[in-house]
């Protein structure tokens, strides 16, 4: 098969995939008797046309950057980590345990400690599937799926039977101490001139951006990243080069799980300020779509996370102001994964044909 020019590979393929997903989404909206134009207008209005909308869009995007990076790191090691959801929930548990039982004097210190707790718990939840993959050859996709469900059960148990304050009915922890409150955008000097009313987006957004840079440095500037990428491309070649497969699988999955876990400082510490059931609310899965659309590159992941942030906030607005159910965003999510992930080959074949057509017509013209 002919190869595509680099610009087409980097920009055109995702764009075409996305366009296909958008067209089908529009058709779905038409099929349920609604107006796609109205839908996109409401979505844009509610998510990016004012500071309040941006406050939500960026809040969601923050979570998606973390989970998208998590999937990305594992992907580069040739591992498909579907367990981001469970790892993010465990990250939430890590945050809760750190913040509930130690009296932190200031949010900055609490943030450092909670980040460690979140990453540690997320990584720990990825460790068992990683170990089973490395040592026993158990397929990581299946084990991480199983661990999502085990995590869900564990969280219900922790919230109902262990962490629920006496006398409370809802399965959730007590509120975290006020000292651990993370500044939202409306509380950050400078930003509060733009964000005048309360928004959930908080300082974690900047940590997410920093992590994108860190992941980029890790993958393309360090020996470890080099080894991760080499191992992901070819396991036999990695063995030839003296790269230890067990070590790479473990480290890549621990980093991946840690990143997914870190998401909890955004939603658990930054927004809810207590641990609720189903805390990750699907963000772990959206990480898959974000990573696929972002072509497993941190810049792509940030852009895709912003797009999904928009989709999430816009989707919520749809649920409020139109007759289109909020579940439309799940449909779009599925379509994006389908076209950018599974049907990648189809889009490429399509583009190669079109390019070949152009080439021959140019030859004929010449």
């Amino acid at each position: 098969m002919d190869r595509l020019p680099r610009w087409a590979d980097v920009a055109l393929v995702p764009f075409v995939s996305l366009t296909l997903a958008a067209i089908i989404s529009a058709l779905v909206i038409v099929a349920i008797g609604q107006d796609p134009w109205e839908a996109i207008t409401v979505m844009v209005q509610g998510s990016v046309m004012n500071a309040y909308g941006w406050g939500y869009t960026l809040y969601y995007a923050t979570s998606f950057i973390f989970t998208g990076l998590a999937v990305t790191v594992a992907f580069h090691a040739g591992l498909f980590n579907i367990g981001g959801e469970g790892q993010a929930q465990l990250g939430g548990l890590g945050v809760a345990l750190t913040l509930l039982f130690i009296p932190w004097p200031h949010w900055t210190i609490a943030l450092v400690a909670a980040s460690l707790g979140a990453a540690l718990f997320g990584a720990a939840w990825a460790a068992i599937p990683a170990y089973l993959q490395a040592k026993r050859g158990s397929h990581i996709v299946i084990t991480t799926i199983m661990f999502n469900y085990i995590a869900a059960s564990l969280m219900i148990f922790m919230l109902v039977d262990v962490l629920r304050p006496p006398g409370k009915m809802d399965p959730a922890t007590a509120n975290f101490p006020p000292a651990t409150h993370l500044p939202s955008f409306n509380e950050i000097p400078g930003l509060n001139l733009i964000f005048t009313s309360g928004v959930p987006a908080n300082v974690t957004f900047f940590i997410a951006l920093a992590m994108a840079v860190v992941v980029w440095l890790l993958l393309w500037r360090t020996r470890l990243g080099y080894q991760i990428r080499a191992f992901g491309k070819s396991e036999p070649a990695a063995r030839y080069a003296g790269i230890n497969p067990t070590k790479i699988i473990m480290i890549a999955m621990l980093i991946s799980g840690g990143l997914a876990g870190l998401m909890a400082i955004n939603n658990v510490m930054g927004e809810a300020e207590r641990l609720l059931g189903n805390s990750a609310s699907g963000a772990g899965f959206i990480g898959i779509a974000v990573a696929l659309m972002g072509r497993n590159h941190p810049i792509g992941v940030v852009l895709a996370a912003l797009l999904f942030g928009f989709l999430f906030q816009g989707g919520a607005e749809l649920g409020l102001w139109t007759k289109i159910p909020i579940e439309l965003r799940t449909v779009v999510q599925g379509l994006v994964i389908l076209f950018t992930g599974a049907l990648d080959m189809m889009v490429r074949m399509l583009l190669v044909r079109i390019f070949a057509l152009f080439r021959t017509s140019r030859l004929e013209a010449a």
Partner: protein
Amino acid sequence: MADPAYAIELKGISKAFGPVQANRDINIAVPKGTIHGIIGENGAGKSTLMSILYGFYKADAGQIFVNGQLTPIPDSQSAIRAGIGMVFQHFKLVQNFSVLENIILGAEDGQMLNSSLSKARKELERLARDYELEVDPDALIEDLSVGHQQRVEILKALYRQADILILDEPTGVLTPDEADHLFRILKGLKDQGKTVILITHKLREIMEATDNVSVMRRGTMVATVKTAETSPEQLAELMVGRKVLLEVQKGAARPGEVVLSVKDLRVRDEHRVERLKGVSFEIRAGEILGIAGVAGNGQSELLAALGGMQVATGSVTLKGAVLPLSGAGSDGQSRRSAGIAHVPEDRHHHGLILDFTAWENVAFGYFNDPRYQKSRLFMDNDAIRADTERKMAKFDIRPPIPTLAAKSFSGGNQQKIVVAREMEQNPALLLIGQPTRGVDIGAIEFIHNQIIALRDAGAAILLVSVELDEIMSLSDRIAVMFDGRIMGFRDPETTDERELGLLMAGVAGKEAA
């Protein structure tokens, strides 16, 4: 209309894979009831031609006649219907199926299995009697030896009532005993009126087993002769074309002290089968030890064990220091820091990451090299790129673009990237496997000269190649491997291809050892 005396007649067959012309205007006629050999070097287009005949690929041009009838073969089903059976080099068997199940697969009678199975069982007994093809019909394939698995493949074809049987490099994986048995089977088939096409790159087999032989070179058919009227020398010349001057300009070796000492090296594969059965040798500084042998006789395992890719037992010392053969310190990184460079036999699976750029591949295996580090944390990618440019210039790698993906280079240039990377380490010991496989003539000469230069600079070199010419012209000493053992050492000045060939076949082993 074609002559019905021919079982197979191909006219003007051409096939290209992208820019590579695998077959060019091939004409061949195979008389009925004969064993017809097709010989040629690796990559001469033999397998492609036979895959076309079996409907696995579609030819770009040309016609196929079976028993004088024009017979289009768009898929394997049509080939089977035309009475053609194929035994592939890599068997197409279902490992956890029984022999019987494999044999009826795709040739069942009706929707139910029971009747098919009992019919096949009877038929199998008959075939076993007629052709010396005994095999337990209820055994699972994974429990059978390679020789028996091959019998199953032949039985599969015969069960489908093939009159024309194609065998692609059938002896590559067989022991000499098994190979002899195979040739008896083929003779038996011929006596029953079947036509056999034998594809091989081994002259001995052609001379031994065939009635006629066609020679292929670089995608074209250069000659078809009666085996009785030709000689191995003539065939060899036809195979390589004008007697290629593969003479390498090299001075006499000046061996120094012992660099590598290997004693009783043993390797077991993942099925616990011993592949290397106690190999011992020494290589001195400034010396090339060439390992000759038919592929699959333990050479790959030898390289893998020394290169840190496979666990082994025995003892190996490098300049007097013991190299661990399992556990900590036995991996490729430890080997490299001990001063061993390794050009692996298979550059696509081991030597390169094809999706990586050329400069990333230049650091492959040497990512811990201090020259490539900017700080404790970060690699110095600019330094690697600069080093790559230097290596590309020195080894004439084209195009000289460090940021191009390895897969975009030609075979010869890919190999040069690997060779440049490994040789430029100035290793105490260079392991080099199949240095010129799939490499064009110009690059072959270049790589050979580099190997000699490295020897003259004082490195010890272990050269593994299935190309006897290469072994003869480069080595200072030759060791011949057969069935996981070294059959003997020879001096290239005093030995000849005939003697080496015998050792490679394991024939003169006892006397030679």
